[in-house]
Each structure stands twice: as C-alpha cells, then as structure tokens.
C-alpha cells in the first residue's frame, strides 16, 4: 500500500499519515526506517509517496470498506493545513466559533423539547446532564467542549489525526470537562459498526458539505442514534445566493473563511437532507435559516434557509410502514 506524508514548514515535525485511513503512523521522517525514506524531501511539491509496511498491515484489517467511505481525501488535505488554527480567537475558524451562539442553544433546547433531557437537569447548570452526544467532524472540539460543559458525555470524531490532537490538547486544559470528552480518529461508518443506536444525539455541524456519499453518511448517522434521539445538522444550501455569499463574499471578498473551504457543488439543499432523513424514519422537528453579520461578527436565526441553515430531526420510535 502507499502512504502519503505532508511536508510542513518545520521539517523535523513531519508526520507520516496513511493515505487511506488518515491515521498517524507514529513515525516522523527522521525516525522512519531508511528504506521508506524518500530520496529527496523537496521533490514532488512537498508530497512524497512511499511504501510502508505499517500501512500495508493496516490496510488489510481496517480499510476494506473503502468503497463506502464518506471521507474525501482532498477535503482532509485542506483541513490538515488549518488544524492549528481551531482555537485561534481571531483566526480562520472565528466564524465557526461564533456559530456556537446558535448551534449550542439548538442542541440544548432541541433535546429539552424532545424530552430526552430530564426536566430537572434542564433547570440547573447542566441541562444535558448524562446525555451521550456524538459530534461528527469535531475538528478542534469547538462544539464538544461547550456540550461537555452542559453535562453531556461527548464523543468527538474526526478523520484527521491533527485535529484530534489539537482537540485533545485543548480540552485537557480544562479539568472540569476533559473527563467527559472522548476524541477518536474515526468516521461515522466506522462508529456505526461499534456502537449502533448508542447516542442520544448526533451532531454534524458544517460537515455534510465536506463528505462523499452523503446518503451513506446520513444513514450511518441515523443508525448511531437511539430511537427517540435527535440529529442536528447545520450546513449550506445549494442556491445562487449561497454561491455569492458563502463562496464569493465570505471566501474571496471578506476572507472571513479560508479560501477553498467550500465547494459549491457539494452544498446540500434542505429538501434533499429532509428526504433522506425521512426515508430513514426520522421526523423533521425544525428547519431554520442562519445569517452571519460580518460587522457585529454574530450569527442570528432567520426564516430564509437559502444560504446557511440548521436542521433538527428526531428518530421515530415506531418503524414507519409505507
């Protein structure tokens, strides 16, 4: 099998990551057995392809389900370059962090209204006390940490080892929440094999527009949730307005989002998302538009969902018969 590694600015810090599983092999360039070292580091635009035994071994055990993978290698490459910036207060993810003011209440109040959070807990300091929540594509843990502070037992999964490292490091700094969060390098289709119908809620915030095989992604997400549990999505609609605002203005004009973050063709209209969820026996509880004001740097709810939107679905108890 082949294996890719990325050359970062600091040469000694180069980490070797499998092209397929996106796991860190634990090797650095200097510690890699000589046979696997590239002859010249600077060739081939910083990306070297080498053969590695570890990767070969891994590939035979864990990565036979490649055909159904929802992880897009190009997207991974994009986010790998940004992984150190998750918690930078004025950095590339500031817009995403600001979105917490909408998506945390969305999850908190959503779980309150569906009755899955105990009424007693919702009145106190830990409204999500004891609820098991999976954050898919957790990145640096921007969403995991607030949810854990509200009492949830959070599992954050992300295909990128770099992101998981950042997330782990950051949450370790607050002893009150570090015990409540588990970060894993994983994907939904991998999780669904281990823990089907385990979570009270699955959150996929600003993730759906980055995955391959949206159908597989959504059906895995639904399978991960208990009956009566909730799914929360926030993503971008595919309209001409979203092209103008989310790509032209946000990425190229105002540069509040790193260039190339989004690909318009991968955006998902809420109708598609709704259909797929309903076909998986889910009830759409809520669909709201979201709007970002770059001057006040704040998000707010709007009725129009033609650019950013949030969706809350509940997995129904009874099997839907048609």
């Amino acid at each position: 099998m082949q294996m890719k590694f990325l050359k970062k600015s600091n040469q000694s810090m180069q980490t070797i990551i499998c092209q397929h599983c996106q796991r860190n092999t634990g090797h650095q360039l200097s510690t890699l057995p000589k046979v696997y070292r590239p002859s010249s580091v600077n060739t081939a635009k910083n990306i070297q392809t080498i053969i590695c035994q570890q990767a070969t071994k891994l590939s035979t055990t864990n990565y036979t389900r490649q055909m159904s993978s929802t992880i897009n290698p190009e997207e991974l490459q994009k986010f790998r370059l940004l992984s150190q910036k998750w918690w930078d207060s004025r950095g590339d993810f500031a817009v995403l962090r600001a979105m917490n003011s909408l998506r945390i209440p969305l999850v908190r109040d959503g779980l309150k209204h569906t009755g899955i959070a105990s009424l007693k807990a919702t009145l106190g300091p830990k409204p999500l006390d004891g609820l098991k929540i999976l954050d898919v594509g957790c990145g640096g843990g921007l969403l995991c940490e607030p949810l854990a502070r509200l009492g949830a037992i959070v599992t954050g999964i992300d295909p990128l080892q770099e992101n998981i490292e950042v997330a782990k490091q950051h949450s370790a700094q607050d002893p009150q929440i570090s015990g409540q969060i588990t970060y894993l390098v994983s994907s939904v289709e991998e999780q669904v094999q281990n823990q089907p119908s385990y979570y009270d809620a699955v959150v996929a915030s600003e993730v759906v527009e980055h995955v391959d095989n949206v159908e597989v992604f959504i059906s895995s997400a639904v399978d991960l949730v208990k009956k009566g549990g909730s799914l929360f999505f926030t993503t971008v609609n595919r309209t001409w307005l979203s092209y103008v605002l989310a790509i032209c203005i946000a990425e190229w004009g105002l540069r509040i989002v790193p260039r190339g973050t989004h690909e318009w063709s991968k955006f998902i209209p809420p109708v598609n998302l709704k259909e797929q969820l309903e076909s998986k026996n889910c009830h759409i509880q809520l669909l709201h538009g979201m709007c970002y004001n770059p001057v006040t740097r704040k998000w707010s709810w709007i009725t129009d969902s033609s650019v950013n939107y949030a969706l809350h679905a509940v997995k129904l108890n009874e099997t839907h018969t048609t």
Partner: protein
Amino acid sequence: MFPGCLSIFCQDAIKFTSIRKVRQLCRIIPYNRSCCPVTYVFFNSETRHLSSTGSRHQQVGEDIEQSLTAEVWDIVVSGGGLVGSAMACVLGYSSVLLDKKILMLETGPPFSQKPLTEKYSNRVFALTPATRDLLNSFKAWDNICSVRLKPVKRMQVWEACSDATISFQHTGMLHDVAYIVENEVILGGVMEQLAKISDRVTVLNHAKVTEYVLPKQGGINEWVEIKLENGRKLKTKLLIGADGMRSLVRKTMNVNYTAWNYDQKAIVATLKLSEPTENNVAWQRFISTGPIALLPLSDDQSSLVWTATSELADQLMAMPEDNFVDALNSAIWDESKKNPIVEKTLGTLNSFLNTLWPGEGSVRQLPPNILSIDEGSRACFPLGLGHAAHYVAPRVALVGDAAHRIHPLAGQGVNLGFGDVQALAKLLVNSVYDGNDIGTLEPLLEYETERQRHIVPTMCVIDGLNRLYSTDLLPVVLLRSLGLHLTDTFRPIKERIISHASS
C-alpha cells in the same frame, strides 16, 4: 438633575468591629468538608486554640486560607463593598451558575449589622427603581424594606440665579422615583442574603491582595493568579474587580484611566427639619459654588449633600454647627443672586407656553426649613471623575467605582455600579448556559460595550451640568434657565431623562 448622594464612597471598605466572627467561620467550613485533611487541621487548630483567647479566630482563619491555595475558583470577586457583594450575590443565586465556586475577597473584617439606632447614618444613597429590581432579584430588597428606607415620590431641581425649576415624578405620584437608603442598610440586606448561600459563595475576609497576574492577550487557557499578602496564591477563571476607585485590578489591567479632581468637596450631614412634613421630595438647588441636595430620611429628618468649592467647604466644616445651619438655610433660600433680565424673559416664556399648553409644567413646591444638624454627623470628602477606557480584559472585568467614578450631583454613582452588576451577571449567565467557559472574552466585551454606551453619556451630562451651573454669567444663566424650563414643559423629553437615569 437628580439629587446628590454619596456615590464616591460606595466601594470603600467598611470598617466594622467584628462581632460575628464565629458566623463567618461557619460560612467557610462547608467549603472544607470536601477535603478531609483540611477538616482535620481545622478542628485540630480549633481545639488547640480554644483556651487561648483572641488569636484563635485568626489562627483558624489562616488554616482555612492555607486550604484555599490548592484550589481553583470559577469566579473571584475582589472587593466586598455594595457593588462587590451584590455581584457575588447575583451570581450565587443564579441557577445556571449553581455548580460554580465563587469567592469574594474583602480586605475588612466580616460584616456585622450594627443595632439600628434612632440616628441615621450620614452615608446614604439614592437608589433607582432599576437598582431596587436588581436587589429584589435575590430578595435583598425585602431585608432592606424591613429595616428602613424612604421612598421619594418627586424630585425638584432649581437654581439660585432664576426661578427656573424642573421636577421629576410619575403621574399622580403613584410610583417611586427613588429610594433613600443608608449604606449599612443596603450592605446588611445584601450580606444577609449572601450568608444564606455560604455553600456556594465563600467570603474571605482580611484578604489583602498584593498582586494579580493576568493571562496575556490571546492566552485563552491561562487563569488569573491572585497573590495575597500572607503569601497564599489563588487561581480563578474569572476575576471581577469591584475594588473601588483605587482599584488594583484596574491598575494591573494597565488600561487608560481618564481622571480629574474637581476643585470641589462634598459635605454630608443628617438634618433635622423645623417641622414634620410628608417629606417625600428630594431637593436640589444649583448655586454657583456647587449643588445642594436634601434627601428625605423620615418625616422630620433629611440627609444633606452640599457640594461646594474646596475653600468654601473648608470654611463650612470649620463653622460651629449653629452657624452651619444658618449658612445652609440661607443657601437654600437666598434670592439675592436672581437676575431681573432672566426673570423677565422666563416670565414671558412661561406665559407664552401657558397659552400654548395650559396646565403643563410643574407646580413649584417650597423646600423645607432646616432646624439643626445631628451632632457630629458632618463629614467632608473631595470629589473627582474617573473612567477606565476598558472595563474588561481576558478573564477580568471591572464593575462599579473601579471602572467609573462620577460627581454625586445626580445620585447615579452607586446605581451605575449596580447596573454593571446586572448587565455582567446577565451576560455571564447566558454565556455559561451556552456552554462557554466562564472567562470567555466575548460576553465580557459585550458587557463593556453595553455599559459604556450607558455610562459615558451619563458621565458627560453630569460633568456638563456641574460646569454649566458653576457660573453666574448672564448669557449662560439665561440659556440654562430657558433650557431647564422648556425641558420641564416637554413631557416626552422629561420621560426620556427619567427612564435613562433610572435604568
């Protein structure tokens, strides 16, 4: 515009002899229960010192302080004055912050309510309805009502150089415009509520802070370190500086602090009126040396705040009490400064307005006559203005006089401080309910914006009024008299003023 009061003092440490030290110990004990070795030390030391009088409490206190060193607090409120204790109280009573560990640091001894005497204290505040609502939110207002306060139904402001008058009241005098309450009564009411939540809010007395180490800009995950005089160190996720106008927290934040001293001093005293009246009006007269305010305390007593030039104030303080009362009465009633030109113009304007809107404008009431002052109740303090360019920094927020200090002429000082408490508590609770770390900068910045939008205009207006009324110059007198009279006639403007001043 509003009657004067002692905003300046609101953050100063209150020096009371400690009577209820034992109670203070009880407040701290529950905190230690979680930690066995410390409890052991505590009881050990208590038995050890039972026989030795005097030093016992101190020793126990030190042991408790030792146990604090290893602890990280969620919120530390520095300063246990009116604003600081109200801050600790609001946070402590919030259900969202139920699991937060809150510490209040106070340099003075534990608060103990002195038995109430007939004699009123000379340190009184005019509290606005907004402050009442804040104190009511944690039931401290009930405690205050059960002790004593005087509701004000009407405020009348007039000046020495003309008959121009303005008065503030709610229609039919149904609602109170303000409440005159003594400092100790407010603090007692708040402290009583604070003692009820001793499991959530710990009060550390005799805590002199020598140094605050603040996290650097951008250092999100560093916490504030507090070094106490006795060598102990505390850590906190959020430091709230309520440590008064000479705030060490503010100095550590290294923010720009705009400040100047007025060449004015305020004299306070408790006054006896010549005859008992309903006495529910707060009076303020602007004379060129500074405003005089009479705040009702009871049917026959009022509190005085007399702002005068430093020179005059010193003379007034040196006078025998009888002469002082004479000087005061003549300052309130003196008509010699009246300018005939202004009077005539004002009369014309008045008759013109009367034909346009008959019945508008307020009826002028006559102020009370002063019989005497309470022996020894006269006190004097210098006045100044101060404003911090920033109220917040990463994991730090300033409230009350630590952030802003104003002239007492409108009685806004302590109310602005309570307004800070209200705003900061609301934003912190919302932020924590959204799962944020308590020290997150965004809600703090929001607090700063919200408060500065209210406080800066208030300060400018009050400073401007003080300057406007410190002259006898004819054109100025004429303009301000006409302006005041017009403001008094136009109800919408007046209502805006009332709502700004009482929010």
